[in-house]
């Protein structure tokens, strides 16, 4: 697997620190679904999406999430967006970050994605001073 175990340890530790917030989705979900830094090496953008959607639990045979965006920056760059923001608020990064947008193009025989890289601003939903949902990314 391309994911380093160090990364997963980091996610686990963060999950423990944010377990005070009992709603869902959580910051841990946000990290798992939307953060990939440094960008996992891949032969091409489509394969990046096919592999990452599988690794992060969003693609199983007959069960494909239709759309997902991965942001390639330090998670701290996005947590700072939510600092001192009220729960449930939508906050947008001032900075642009490299992102990969994955879109489902076929679900049979396996989930197949088309991947595209952009440099986008990122809008997130905050809760407990942390991003929990990626609302959208745009120029």
């Amino acid at each position, binding site marked *: *697997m391309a994911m380093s*175990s160090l990364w997963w340890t980091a996610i686990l530790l963060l999950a423990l620190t944010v377990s005070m917030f*009992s*709603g*869902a*989705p959580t910051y841990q979900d946000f990290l798992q*679904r939307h953060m990939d830094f440094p960008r996992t090496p*891949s*032969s*091409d953008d*489509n*394969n990046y999406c096919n*592999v990452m959607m*599988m*690794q992060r639990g*969003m693609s199983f045979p007959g*069960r494909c*999430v*239709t*759309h*997902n965006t991965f942001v390639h920056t330090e998670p701290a760059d996005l947590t700072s967006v939510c600092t001192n923001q009220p729960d*449930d608020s939508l906050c947008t990064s001032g900075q642009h970050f490299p992102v990969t947008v994955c*879109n489902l*193009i*076929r679900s049979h025989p396996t989930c197949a994605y*088309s991947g595209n890289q952009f440099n986008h601003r990122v809008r997130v*939903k905050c*809760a407990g001073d942390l991003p*929990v*949902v*990626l609302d959208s990314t745009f120029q």
Partner: protein
Amino acid sequence: MDLDIQCEEMNPSRWAELLSTMKSCSTIRLDDCNLSSSNCKDLSSIIHTNPSLKELKLNNNELGDAGIDYLSKGLLTPSCSLQKLWLQNCNLTSASCETLRSVLSAQPSLTELHVGDNKLGTAGVKVLCQGLMNPNCKLQKLQLEYCELTADIVEALNAALQAKPTLKELSLSNNTLGDTAVKQLCRGLVEASCDLELLHLENCGITSDSCRDISAVLSNKPSLLNLAVGDNKIGDAGLALLCQGLLHPNCKIQKLWLWDCDLTSASCKDLSRVFSTKETLLEVSLIDNNLRDSGMEMLCQALKDPKAHLQELWVRECGLTAACCKAVSSVLSVNKHLQVLHIGENKLGNAGVEILCEGLLHPDCNIHSLWLGNCDITAACCATLANVMVTKQNLIELDLSYNTLEDEGVMKLCEAVRNPNCKIQQLILYDIFWGPEVNDELKALEEARPDVKIIS
């Protein structure tokens, strides 16, 4: 027995345990398991000693050319009767093609080879084609996506096609072939005796220039069931040319993939004619084309024709609004064939989706899978959706991801799931925010309705 593992890091003890299982497996799938060339030595001896092994899928492992070299020792043993070999994204280069050439030449049992996402290059695949030319080779499916092929490959491919009457599926997507090469390939396909069933040429640098030749394949190959030309800028002019082939009486197309093809509403006139005349047509993807409401309305008119047998329509991200929903709804109420509708990433809004629900409730509507992700719907729409969920017994899959449904909306959906009349099997609520109260309700629901998968 099947071994099917994905995304698991192998440690030596786990590997040893799996090896003993693999001795009797007919299918081995180890996708993205961090395998390296050294694991291939073991796999080679499994191939050698397990005559029941039919499928080997090792996608997304860094096996490298050395790994394939080890594998080939097993694959070249006469007792090996492997039918399907998947080596996608395995860090192979042209050097592996020599090995694969000898496997193709020596193994008449091999019917499928998937080697996409490897930098084989034109030179490498030319060597592979020599294996295909061997009379021993009985390959039916060849997948060469993202292999860094150039226009120069077509001559070798055409020669192999002429020599391979067994070939049924060919995928060359994501290689920069360009129009000249695609024209040449199409002429080769028309001449070849193979009964080609699937042709995938997505993102191959195709414009309207080569669409006349693709059209000729459609009208000359009644065996062709599945054509994918998505992610090529063919435009309305290219689509019009394709439709000539699609409308030809010989053409028996079932699946048509035209996503991100720079189509506008102007294409929908030609597509309508295909929808209302081609009874074989079952699945169409038009995602990421700017069809707009007017285009969608034309397609809907066609889908009301009794000859329209379409079962699955993907129109995600097509610039649709509530304005086209009345037309879609009227299709749902008269067309008994349509089962799957992907209409997400369109600004339908609550008003649009409520109109769709009217059609869904019609007794003749057979939609079992409805995808409405990111359609700008809110809690206000959820009572209507909940009513559909408990009334429409054949609706088993509903995707409402990326909509701001709020706690109130999700609670309404949960209430519907609790109703024993609700036959939903999968409710997909991906990336929707809700609070602890909804979370508790979802947990309770998991126990109350274990047959319903709520994916979030």
